[in-house]
């Protein structure tokens, strides 16, 4: 009997080393390199150490947000509230510091506050059947509203605060001209830690695998006996807390906070995640892709400036660049499909 069974199917082709799911992410790597090379070739400043340093320092917050956004998107959900959570935690944190609270305590309060909003979103989604889009849209309005109710002023650190140790630049390569220094700061290191955290969470914990499973099919995940509800809470809690962390990094960097900070950042984060090859309907994608997506998104603006795009055309050109990017990925995938 079993002899017949053994020959039933030829095992699918082996040596299929390059996982098809990784193609879009790889495309992001290639395009990022091409963009930097093009910038360097045409304007000569894109490989300057100063630019590269600033790319990371100025976008540490975006990298953190991209990692945060990857989690809900992998399940087919979304978190629109990250930008607003940056705002409310920044405003609250700054108020606390100005009231004389030590920086570390303020940071913890900020993280907790972010977590509260994540918990609220999770509860709305899981307990009241709200769709993530609507639930996080609501918490976005709520966070932004409360932030502006607390203060609409541009708040700055008081004299002698100890918050900006996060922004303290560490010069790795010090050259006479600032534009050629290679430097990082604690914010960048935090962002990198977050990336590693995201990677481990998604690929080396059961919670992470459950996230992918939910993205594949929520009802299947439930019937497979996976802790779907708990995982959903974890996702929105994590993304909101990471948003608070992004807020800390950004606030330390610029030394001020305001209720209007972070408007539209959720869209940048989503764009980064998508450019990085994660599928918005869930199930496929990588955290590293999102990081690359964030970097690609970050060089779009300077490229537009370098090319001297007229004011009215900038959003069109940036939109087109993202479009070309997505289409290219799609084409690469289609070719991969055929093979």
């Amino acid at each position: 009997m079993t002899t017949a069974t053994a020959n039933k199917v030829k095992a699918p082709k082996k040596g299929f080393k390059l996982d098809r799911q990784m193609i879009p992410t790889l495309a992001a790597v290639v395009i990022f390199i091409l963009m930097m090379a093009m910038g360097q070739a045409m304007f000569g400043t894109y490989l300057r150490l100063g630019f590269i340093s600033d790319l990371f320092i100025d976008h540490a917050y975006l990298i953190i947000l991209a990692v945060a956004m990857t989690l809900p998107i992998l399940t087919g959900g979304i978190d629109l509230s990250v930008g607003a959570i940056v705002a409310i935690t920044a405003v609250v944190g700054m108020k606390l510091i100005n009231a004389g609270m030590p920086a570390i305590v303020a940071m913890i309060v900020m993280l907790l506050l972010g977590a509260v909003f994540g918990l609220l979103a999770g509860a709305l989604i899981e307990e009241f059947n709200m769709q993530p889009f609507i639930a996080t849209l609501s918490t976005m309005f709520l966070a932004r509203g409360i932030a502006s109710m607390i203060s609409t002023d541009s708040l700055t650190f008081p004299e002698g605060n100890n918050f900006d140790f996060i922004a303290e630049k560490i010069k790795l390569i010090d050259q006479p001209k600032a534009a050629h220094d290679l430097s990082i700061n604690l914010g960048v290191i935090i962002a990198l830690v977050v990336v590693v955290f995201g990677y481990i969470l998604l690929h080396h914990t059961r919670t992470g695998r459950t996230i992918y499973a939910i993205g594949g099919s929520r009802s299947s995940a439930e019937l497979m006996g996976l802790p779907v509800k708990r995982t959903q809470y974890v996702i929105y809690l994590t993304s909101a807390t990471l948003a608070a962390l992004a807020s800390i990094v950004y606030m330390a960097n610029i030394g001020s906070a305001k209720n209007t900070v972070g408007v539209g950042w959720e869209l940048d984060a989503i764009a980064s995640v998508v450019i990085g090859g994660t599928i918005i309907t869930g199930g496929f994608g990588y955290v590293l892709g999102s990081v690359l997506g964030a970097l690609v998104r970050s060089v779009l603006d300077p490229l537009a400036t370098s090319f001297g795009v007229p004011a009215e055309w900038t959003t069109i050109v940036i939109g087109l660049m993202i479009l070309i990017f997505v289409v290219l990925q799609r084409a690469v995938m289609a070719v991969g499909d055929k093979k």
Partner: protein
Amino acid sequence: ACGSSNSGSSDSGKKVVGFVAVGPEDGFRTANEKDIQQAFADAGFDLKYSPTQQGDQSKQIQAFNKFVNDEVDAIILSSTEDSGWDESLKKAAEAEIPVFTVDRNIDVKDSAAAKAVVSHIGPSNEWAGEQAAEFVNKNFPDGANGFILEGPAGLSVVKDRGSGWDAKVASNIKVLDSQSANWSTDEAKTVTAGLLDKFKSENPQFIFAQNDEMGLGAAQAVDAAGLKGKVKIITIDGTKNALQALVDGDLSYVIEYNPIFGKETAQAVKDYLDGKKIEKNIEIDSKTFDATSAKEALDNGTRAY
């Protein structure tokens, strides 16, 4: 791998100036930034223009830092926020790149950072708010009720125009309600219609709209409610459309917030780079308009925006 070390000056030998801008948001902004771009081109600079989106400061900071890394000869900064620039300015100071702030002044705490800012060029928002208050004081010596239409909560322009108003407004002038209409004509119309409904019994007599766009919307709501002429509308900015509306009697008073100072800015940059001493604060004069002066201004056809 630290790039070619060409200086900021472009091949043609022109001086390169980075312009960290807001982007075409409304009539004022468009006029202002076009004027600056034109003026610098005329003065023989190579101006790199970098707008932000949705007034996002983070994009401005990134653009600023990019200009520093590009080693441009000067940076013009039209900031969306008045703080948060210390780190970037420090870097500019280290790279010895002069920064000129335009339109909105910024708060700098760090002394090293403050060194980077050479001069501020622009009109005053507080002054504009004060003018609005004084117009109302003058027109309603016996007191009056009215509304304020604000820009989006939290912008420093909104606050400055508001504090100017607060500083000068008489105690018998009562503001029934102030609401945000997001700088938008269309929202202002809706909001005003609602306010007029709500406060019908209080007999509102003035509306202070913090910009022209909102004032024009308010005027339409007032018109629709059959109150044209009975409610005085004061706006800030002084675009052509507003002046026209002033002539037509839809608006009562327009305070200019003069966006045309590209020439002054270009001159300041040029002077500085030529080693001349320049003033720390170059205030741009603005005018106020009533129906007659508006007609004059429109008729002589010199208004650029």
